[in-house]
């Protein structure tokens, strides 16, 4: 098998949908380290990738008014046990356009690897982007992953992002995302992570509700086992009339794991409102007992609860 087949095999083993990349109207990019293995644009989707030893530079543009039916796939990672991958990504969803991006970040054999991403995303007026990023870091806990995203949502735009790392080990993860939301625009940011062993997780999401009637939600679900550590910082600024924000953080811990949640609310307009809820602790006793009354052992019941919150 060549590197492309290996990458697709890794994708199939985690997501079981690699065949979708072969569809003719599906834009995609597949890269191993700093080498592009496959790339395809599609009507309404411009996709450029520049290779260099320092990293990959990707630019994705969805044309004004284009409604892209098939999700755009990005399958990026590396198959070697030790490697560094640097990505610079620029995404522009032009006014009135609508697209879904499914990013698969795969490091199935990582013993000591690093993945650093710097993304800038602009969502034009009335445009919509659904961005789903799924990670698999293998079973050894040797990855360090640092995604940094800056997102601007123009008036009436919509942005829905969903980061998930729920299979295998995490290693060290540090997400930093800042989203600026203009008037009548919407942002919903979700992150789901299951960390175990000596994994370390840091998630910092910041929402700036800058425009009138802008709305935003930060939702974080983290489950921790063994000696894993997590710190979740959610920051929401309510800076305009009618801005509405909410932060919802749930961290479940077991064994010797430890977690921290820091919701920060900053409101500078009297007609803006930002709320938050954060819960850190072990699984809910009522849930546990309900499942045990079905004959599930405590361990089985916890698995059901954790699987649910990470969906």
């Amino acid at each position, binding site marked *: 098998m060549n590197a492309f087949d290996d990458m697709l095999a890794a994708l199939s083993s985690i997501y079981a949908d690699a065949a979708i990349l072969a569809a003719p109207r599906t834009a995609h990019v597949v890269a191993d380290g700093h080498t592009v293995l496959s790339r395809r644009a599609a009507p309404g989707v411009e996709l450029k990738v520049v290779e260099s030893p320092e990293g990959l530079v990707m630019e994705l543009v969805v044309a004004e008014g284009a409604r892209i039916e098939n999700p755009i796939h990005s399958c990026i990672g590396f198959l070697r046990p030790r490697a560094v991958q640097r990505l610079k990504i620029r995404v522009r969803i032009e006014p009135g356009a609508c697209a879904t991006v499914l990013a698969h970040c795969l490091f199935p054999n990582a013993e000591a690897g690093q993945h650093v991403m710097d993304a800038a995303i602009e969502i034009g007026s009335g445009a919509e982007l659904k961005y789903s990023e799924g990670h698999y870091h293998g079973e050894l806990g040797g990855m360090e992953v640092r995604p940094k995203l800056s997102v601007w949502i123009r008036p009436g735009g919509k942005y829905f992002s969903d980061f998930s790392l729920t299979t295998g080990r995490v290693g060290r993860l540090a997400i930093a995302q800042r989203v600026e939301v203009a008037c009548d625009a919407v942002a919903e940011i979700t992150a789901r992570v299951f960390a175990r062993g000596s994994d370390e997780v840091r998630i910092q999401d910041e929402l700036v509700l800058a425009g009138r009637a802008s709305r935003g939600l930060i939702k974080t*679900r983290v489950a921790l086992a063994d000696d894993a550590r997590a710190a979740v910082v959610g920051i929401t600024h309510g800076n305009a009339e009618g801005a509405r924000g909410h932060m919802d953080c*749930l961290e479940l811990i077991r064994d010797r794991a430890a977690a921290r949640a820091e919701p920060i609310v900053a409101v500078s307009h009297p007609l803006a409102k930002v709320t938050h809820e954060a819960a850190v602790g072990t699984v*809910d*006793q*009522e*849930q546990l*007992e*309900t*499942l*045990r*009354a*079905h*004959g*599930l*052992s*405590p361990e089985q*019941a916890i698995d*059901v*609860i954790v*699987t*649910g*919150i*990470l*969906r």
Partner: protein
Amino acid sequence: MSLLEIVQLVFRANGRAILDGVDLDVAAGEIHALLGANGAGKTTVARIVMGCSGYAPTAGSVRLEGRDLAGLPMHERARLGITMAWQEPARFEGLPVNEYLSLGCRSPDPAGCLRLVGLAPEAYLERVLDKKLSGGERKRIELASVVALKPRLAILDEPAAGIDVPSMEEIEQLILALKREGSAVLLITHVEPVAKIADRASCLCGGRITFTGDPATAAERYRSRHCVTCDGVACAE
């Protein structure tokens, strides 16, 4: 032999006797209503029988077909055939109804159990048991899950709570369906009309069983509100 036998059950919490010598038995296939005012200790009886955390009896015994359940963990009790529908059903983020019904399911048709509680399976199986479902809907799903478990003893804690009055008959039909399927039911309620479908009923007051017999008499005693203020003393006389 009774299916469930509770003998001289005492439960104290924070220096106060919640249960003070409860004797109660439930026969196989019987619907046995346990009537009592708010705070009488009905749910405490249920939690002790189910083996909930923090509800080990201070004294007395709970037996299932003669087997003492002391020290047996909750899930082991469930595997022996005891289950419980809670007064306030838990919410589960991300858990669809069809998966919930499949947990421990012994019924060949778990979806059909939803019909028994007046819910259309096609409208509910894919929904998630979270806060988007109303309390009444979650209550019905909880009761459907009890039917799917085909228990030997189903403890139903206030099954009518949160159910609208026109739907009350569906809940009664569900309880009768459990009996038809061979389950015994310990029906805990403070709403005495619900108890009318029981084979027998007991009144709990002041931490003791003050009456066991036909449901109509139990309901009459309960309706008189006599025992609400007597702390069980007058009822026990």
